[in-house]
C-alpha cells in the first residue's frame, strides 16, 4: 500500500468540498493524496464528483472549501495556466485551426522556448506516440485514435510532472481503446509522470491503474489497488460497481472473528466474511463474485450449500453464463469455464451451488 501520508504526497486534496449552487455538495470532504509517479484512476458513475475533482486540480473549478496541494504548495489561488499540469480532454480539444505540429508547439511557444528547441521537442513528442509523419496535418484529417495520440503528446510535450486525463478513451471503439490503455500506462511509467485518470469504465480503471479511487455521491468509497478493489470491496456500492456481483440480502445472526453467519430473507443460513457489518441483528447484503460460485460443490463441511433453479443459460464462447434463482434472487449469475467436461445447464433444472466463506462478503445493506 503506497504511503498516503500528506507530507510526502505529490498531489493532495485536504478536506475539499465543492458546491455549484450553494445548496448541495458535489464533492463532500475529499481527502486524497498520491505520491510521485503514481497512476491513479478516479472511477465512478456520472455525477459522482470525479470530474469535478479533476477540474479543481486543473484549476478550472475552485474548491468551495479545503485545500489542494501540488508538491506541498497550495494551488488553490494559482490560475490554471501557471500550474504546469498537462491535461488530456475527453474530446481531445485539439485546436482545429492549427496543424498537429502547431498544436504541439503551442505550449512551448507560450513558455517562450526557442524555435529550434521547440521543433526538437515537438518531433520527439510525435515520435513518442508514433505519429512522426503527421506533423503537417490538421486534427480533422486524423482518425479518433490518432487525435487521441496527438492530444496525449500535446499534454506531455512541455514535460509536466502531473498529467490529468478526463475520460480520454471514451470516444474510441473497443479494440482501439484497449490498445491505447496499454500505450498510455506504459508511456506514463516510462516517463515517470504522475497521472490522474478519470473514467467511468471499470475495466479501464482496473487494467491501467496503480490505485483506483471509486467515487460515489461526492465521496471516495474506496481507494485501493485494482486487485484489492475487486476481491475485497469495502462496501456494497464498490462491490456492485466493480465487476459482476451477486447479492443476497439477510440479517447477521452471529459474528465470530472473520466468520459470520447470515440468515437470508428466504430463511437459508450461509457463512460469510464480515466486512461492513458491526453487530448481530444488522441487515446485510452478501456479495459473491459469479466466478467463485461452484456447481455441485465439494467444499468441505464448514460451508453451506444452497438450492438453485436454472433460469437461463447463455453460451459466451470462453465461458458459460448461467442465471439462477437463489434464495428469492432471480438475478443470481454464475460463470463456468468452457471445459470439455463442463455441464451445460438447462432452464428449469434444479441444482446445488456453494462457495468458500472467504469469497462471500457481508457488506452494508444500503
Amino acid at each position, binding site marked *: 500500500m503506497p504511503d498516503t501520508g500528506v507530507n510526502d504526497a505529490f498531489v493532495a486534496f485536504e478536506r475539499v468540498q465543492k458546491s455549484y449552487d450553494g445548496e448541495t455538495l458535489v464533492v463532500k470532504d475529499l481527502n486524497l493524496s498520491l505520491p510521485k509517479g503514481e497512476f491513479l484512476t478516479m472511477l465512478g458513475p456520472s455525477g459522482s464528483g470525479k470530474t469535478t475533482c479533476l477540474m479543481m486540480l486543473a484549476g478550472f473549478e475552485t474548491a468551495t472549501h479545503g485545500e489542494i496541494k501540488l508538491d506541498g504548495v497550495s494551488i488553490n489561488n494559482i490560475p490554471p*495556466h501557471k500550474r504546469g499540469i498537462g491535461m488530456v*480532454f475527453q474530446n481531445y*480539444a485539439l*485546436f482545429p485551426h492549427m496543424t498537429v505540429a502547431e498544436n504541439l508547439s503551442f505550449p512551448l511557444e*507560450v513558455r517562450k522556448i526557442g524555435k529550434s528547441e521547440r521543433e526538437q521537442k515537438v518531433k520527439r513528442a510525435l515520435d513518442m506516440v508514433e505519429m512522426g509523419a503527421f506533423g503537417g496535418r490538421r486534427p480533422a484529417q486524423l482518425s479518433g485514435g490518432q487525435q487521441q495520440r496527438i492530444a496525449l503528446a500535446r499534454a506531455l510535450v512541455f514535460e509536466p510532472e502531473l498529467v490529468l486525463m478526463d475520460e480520454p478513451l471514451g470516444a474510441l471503439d473497443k479494440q482501439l481503446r484497449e490498445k491505447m490503455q496499454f500505450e498510455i500506462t506504459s508511456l506514463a511509467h516510462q516517463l515517470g509522470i504522475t497521472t490522474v485518470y478519470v473514467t467511468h469504465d471499470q475495466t479501464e480503471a482496473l487494467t491501467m491503474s496503480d490505485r483506483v479511487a471509486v467515487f460515489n455521491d461526492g465521496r471516495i468509497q474506496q481507494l485501493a489497488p485494482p486487485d484489492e478493489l475487486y476481491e475485497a470491496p469495502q462496501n456494497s456500492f464498490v462491490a456492485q460497481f466493480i465487476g459482476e456481483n451477486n447479492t443476497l440480502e439477510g440479517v447477521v445472526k452471529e459474528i465470530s472473528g472473520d466468520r459470520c453467519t447470515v440468515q437470508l430473507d428466504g430463511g437459508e443460513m450461509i457463512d460469510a466474511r464480515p466486512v461492513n457489518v458491526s453487530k448481530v441483528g444488522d441487515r446485510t447484503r452478501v456479495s459473491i463474485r459469479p466466478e467463485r460460485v461452484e456447481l455441485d460443490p465439494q467444499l468441505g463441511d464448514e460451508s453451506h450449500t444452497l438450492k438453485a433453479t436454472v433460469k437461463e443459460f447463455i453460451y459466451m464462447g470462453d465461458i458459460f453464463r448461467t442465471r439462477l434463482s437463489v434464495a428469492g434472487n432471480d438475478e443470481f449469475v454464475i460463470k463456468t469455464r468452457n471445459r470439455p467436461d463442463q455441464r451445460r445447464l438447462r432452464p428449469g433444472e434444479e441444482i446445488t451451488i456453494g462457495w468458500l466463506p472467504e469469497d462471500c462478503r457481508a457488506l452494508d445493506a444500503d
Partner: protein
Amino acid sequence: MTTGTPMTDASAEDKASGPMLAADGTPLKKSLARALRMEKIRASMLIAPLLLFVLVTFIAPIADMLFRSVENEIVSDTMPLTTEALEDWDGEGLPGDAAFEAAYYDIFLAAEQKNHTRLGTRLNYEMTGASSLFRKSGRGLDDIGEVYQDQFEDLNKDWDEAATWVELLGDPDWLAEQKEWAASEEGRQPRFKLREGMDELLPVTSREYATFARYQQREERKNLLEEEPWSAVHTALYEDLAAGDMSSYNGPRADMLKAADELVAGADFETVTFRDGFEEIDRDWVKPEIWRTIKLYSPNYTSGYFLNSVDMQLTPDGVEARPENQRIYIMLFQRTLFMSMVITFSCILLGYPVAYILSNLPSRTANLLMILVLLPFWTSLLVRTSAWKVMLQQQGVINDVLVWIGLVSDGDRLVMINNQFGTIVAMTHILLPFMILPMYSVMSTIPPSYVRAAKSLGATNWTTFWRVYFPQSVPGIGAGSILVFILSIGYYITPEIVGGTTGTFISNRIAYHISSSLNWGLAAALGTILLAVVLLLYWAYDRIVGIDNVKLG
C-alpha cells in the same frame, strides 16, 4: 473461380464489359433515376411556389433593371430618319441639309404623338438644354409647313380637303373599302394603301402621307376620308414638286398637281430651308452639339448610363471624364463603401463582446438577453431612426445633457445629425443584431474545452483568447460582416432621414433618379454597379475566407 455461382459470374462480366445492370437488365443508373424520379418531382412541386414568386418578384425585376441600364431605343425609335441621315456624318461642323430635313419630319411626327418631350428629357441627361429645345421645336416646326400649306391652299382650296389627298395617293380598291366602312364606321378601318407608282412620282409625300394615315387610323382612330393632312405632308409635296417632273402624270387630281408644280416652279413661290426653319426656332439647332448628341445616342444600346455612373461621358472623341463640377457618383460610391466599412467595423467592435458573453452564459440567461438583442426588430425601422433624430439633434437629448453637465456650452452644441456621424451611429444601431446573431451562433459552437486546453497548456487569458478562441470565432465575424456590409451598402431609409447631404448613400441617389428625375436608365446603371460591387466583394470574400466557413446559425 471454378466454384463461382452464375450470379457472381454475371456481375463480374458486367463490370468488365460495360455499365452496371439492375436485376431486370436495365442500366443501374437509369433504374436509379427512375426510382428517384417521383421524389424529385414531389420536391420540385414543393419549391415551385417560392421559385415562381422569386422569379416574378426578384429575378425578373433585376433582369429588367440590368437591361434598362443599357437600353436606349428611344432615340432611334423617335427619330428613325434622323438616325439614318446622321449615319455618315463625321461629327465635324454641322450635318448636311438632309439631316435637318429628316429631323423636321421626325420631330413633327413626334410632336403630334407628344413623344418629343420624352426624347428631349432623355437627351437632356447627356446635354443640358435638350429638353427645352425639343419642347420648343415641337411647337415651332408647324411654321415651316404652314408656309407651303398656305400657298397650296391659296392656289386651290381643295389642297385643304382630305378627299384630294386620298384620291391622289390612295389605292382605288382601298378607297372603295374605306368609303364602304365610312358609311357604318363599324369594325376595323381598312388600312391605307398607296396607289401604285405614287412612291416613285411623289416619294417624300407618299412616305409622309402614309405616316400620317397610319397615325390617324391606328392611334387616333379617325376616318381618313375626313382628316386633312398635317403641314408636314404639304412640305413633302413641295419637296417632291421641286425635285420631280409631274407632266407625265395623268391619274386622279392631275390638274391640281400640275398647277401646283407650276406654282412651285414659279419665281414668286416662297420657300424656307429646313436649316433656316430650325435656326428660327432655336439657335442651338445650328450648333453641332445637339447633332453630336443625337448621333452618339442613336444606337439601340448605349454605355452612356454606365459612363455617367462613374462620372464619365461619351463624346465624339471617345470616353472622357465629366467636368469637375458634375462629378458626384464616384464620390458617392466611395462614401457608401467607406461608411459601410465603418459601420461594419463598429458593429464588430460592439457586437463581439455581446456575442461572447451571450455564448458563455447559461442558456436561460442567454435566451433572456437574446430577446434584448432582438428587441429592436419589434419596433419599426422608421421609429428607431426617428428616435436617433431626437437623440442626436442639436436641441436633442444628448446635447441637452452635455450642456447641462457643462461639457459643451449652449452656444456650440455638437452637430451629430444630418451628417456622416449621424448615419454611422443610427445604422450601427440598426444593423447590430445582424452582427451579433451569426457571431453568437458560431461562438456557442466553440466547446469550452478548447479554452481550458489552452490554459492547461500554459497560455494566459489573452493568449488563449487571441490564439485559440478568436481564430475559431472568425467565421462568425465573417458571416456577420458580410451580412452587415451588404445590408448597409444598399441601405436607404436611415441615410435618407439622418444623413443630411454629407451622410447619404448611393442608394439615395438611385431613389432620386427613380422617383424624382425619372432617369431610370441611370438609376439602373447605378444599381447594377452596386450589385456588381456586392458580388465582387462576395467573390473576394469567398476566395480569402471561404464561404463554407460562414455560419449563419
